């Protein structure tokens, strides 16, 4: 299982993470799939996604918005691809749609069978056991307009992912509090940082902090 978690930030900030991510691909001419959170602006996000990865010599891409019905032809192609990237957006909407359409289990299976799965922000949170981190702090959380109550996600790792982290007292206060009520460690990463999870190792790119049982630890600098 190979997973890459992107916190966010600009293209330039993520170059190192991108290179590490693409080095995990075994195919010299890989097909990358972009799954946006929502089809609302997904086509334009896809255009940006393609332009970004073209810089690395990639030329085969699939666009797979999940909140519109898809035929089986494209569906099969997606799950035979080399990398599936989950975009950012509203985590509740994303999870709800993936679950409703039955793609959540497909994606989990894809990753467990060796497919490379990457996720930006909300997309990264979805690969963890649950999406609790999307719900705090109050000043920087996603709106649960879906009224979702089941927050279980893909459960591919034993940690929670907190993207767009800012090393400040008000974030820390909330993260420390949350880390007391969740059994898994919470990895909080600022924009430009990321996590790479392979069968052999857990690697952090850029700064990363761990919040666990009320304590904050710098784990990568």
């Amino acid at each position, binding site marked *: 299982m190979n997973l890459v978690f992107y916190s966010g930030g600009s293209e330039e900030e993520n170059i190192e993470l991108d290179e590490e991510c693409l080095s995990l691909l075994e195919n010299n001419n890989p*097909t990358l799939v972009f799954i946006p959170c929502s*089809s*609302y602006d997904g086509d334009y996000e896809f255009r940006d996604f*393609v332009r970004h990865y073209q810089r690395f010599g990639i030329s085969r891409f699939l666009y797979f*918005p999940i909140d519109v019905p898809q035929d089986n*032809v494209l569906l099969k192609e997606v799950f035979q691809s080399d990398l599936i990237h989950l975009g950012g957006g509203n985590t509740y909407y994303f999870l709800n749609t993936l679950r409703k359409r039955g793609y959540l289990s497909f994606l989990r299976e894809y990753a467990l069978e060796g497919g490379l799965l990457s996720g930006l922000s909300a997309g990264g949170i979805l690969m963890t056991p649950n999406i609790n981190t999307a719900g705090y702090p109050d000043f920087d959380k996603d709106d649960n307009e879906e009224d979702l109550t089941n927050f279980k996600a893909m459960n591919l790792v034993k940690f929670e992912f907190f993207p*767009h982290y800012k090393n400040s007292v008000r974030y820390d206060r909330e993260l420390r509090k949350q880390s007391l009520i969740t059994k898994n460690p919470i990895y909080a990463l600022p924009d430009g940082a990321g996590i790479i999870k392979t069968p052999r190792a857990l690697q952090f790119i850029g700064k990363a902090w761990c919040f666990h049982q009320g304590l904050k630890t710098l784990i990568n600098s």
Partner: protein
Amino acid sequence: MTRLKKNSLRSWSEEAGFKPTARTYSKFKKINGKHPFQRETKDSFVAYRARVRHGGKVVVFNFELARAMGLIPKGHPDKMTKDLEKAIVDTFAIVIINEYDQINKIKYPEKDIKPNFYMATRYLQLQHPNKQGKTSGDGRSIWNGCLETKNGIWDISSCGTGATCLSPATHIQKKYFQTGDPSISYGCGYAELDEGLATMFFSEILHKNQVTTERVLGVLKFPDGYAITIRVHDNLLRPSHMFNHLKQSNFDALEKVVNYYIDRQIKNGVWTDMPENAHARYDFFLEKQTEVFAKTAAKFEDEYIFCWLDWDGDNVLMDGGIIDYGSVRQFGLFHSEYRFDDQDRFSTSIIEQKNKAKYTVQNFAQIVDYLKTGERRSLKDFAQEPWSENFEKVFETAKLKNLLYKIGFKKEVRDQILERNCDLVQEFSKSFSYFERAKSVKGPKKVSDGINWDAIFCMRDILRELPQLYLSRGESIKRKEFLEILKSSYATEEDLLLSTYRKKKIDSFQDLYWQLVKTASSLQKITQNNVLLNLTMRSSIINKYDRVTGDSITTITDMMMEKIDNLSPDKLYSLLENFSEYQNLDPDTDKSLEKNQWQKSQLMRGFLQVVRDYREGL
């Protein structure tokens, strides 16, 4: 969670810094009924006094359009200020003092009466008993004026401003009606609020997608529930504004209207290379109108826009722009057999629009000959003249260009492919049409407002997915897969049978598609993969899964009407902006994601679902 976004262009701090001055809304005062057309010919309009219509409130105002016109300053925020609302209401909340009022000597306070006359223009309309246009025209509209700013020139008219003597009801029932008379609907001179909102949403979407159209500047509502819709275009003349004079052999009026139109096109900067000689001007006019109507007919057909073009030239503007959204639709599939049932007759179908457009140009040819010779020859004499050949040529080329656009090719590549290998594009076009025009074995059926024979294939879906799948696999897809992607919800099992003929057609489609890719690759000197990648990116926008249809606009308007009392003008404008931007399927738009990361409201999410649910319909 989203990436952190920049603040939007029109941030609160900017709004807080915006303070209207006494001059901010001064341009509204220029919209006072006066219009240069009034100076041309008295035979082209009926002049009405107007008075204040009390109790008007702004429901929505199109800030972007107002800024583009120069009506409000370019730095004006998307916010309805008290002064702005007053300017809009003072300018547009009016009702005419019509013949009924005059006959019945109804008195209005002097202070309520506007100083200038407003014109209701005369034009030909097929639904009128008089087929020469002697009695027809703006039945419930007046022209507010013509605004000239450094940004350009705009005609402004309002719908719902009172019953004129040009409405069909007046001539069918042979009497003048009091404005608001509840015994008749359309003839009462008022307009419905939902009509205005539907027009505004539909026209903004089409405008963003490069379809020429009237646009709505704003909608006002009144305590009696009726509304006024303010429409704007750079030239609101219709062919029917000329055809009435033509049918009546009114040479002087016709000459003046045609000359007015030509001069206005020059002034608007649309026609730049006009010859000076009078006859050459008319030839130029005919050439341009031929091109405009051939291209418009091709665009309507290819974008599945049903506009009910007909012999009267009433439902379209001189520049091919859409006007009067009452019967306008955009189909999700090529429902080429759909006909609107207008009680006493059926409308034209989408494929018949081409011949109606051509017939309109035939009238222009007759006009030009009449103006040049002073003799009105029979319309039939003009059926086979050179303009006709030109029309066919422009139409066919436009169709091929439109097809290449829909596939996803950029303009320069489209031009090159057509120049290098037009035959290939024509062959592909035939193959495309075979699937596009395929109909259900179930045959024609009644629908809520007419008749239809369901199309069964969604060409937008195949154009969106094919380049991706070719890119991923490097080869054609299986025939069954092709049909799986192409089939619409209207297709039955029988419709999807893989006959020998259909197999051949699928193979041919894919073969020709690959040939187009190879041609582009050779012309652009890039790999086939890169061609497919460019097509993938562009066609995923052009052929987005969700595209509005007429039915979806109607349903969305109903949803808005349910919440209308709780929607402020700013909120409604925000909905309009975001919804029309979401429906902007132009891949060449420089759409910044920052701008569109909008927290979707429940209403907006409802809109998206409606678009999805009705995407294959009428």
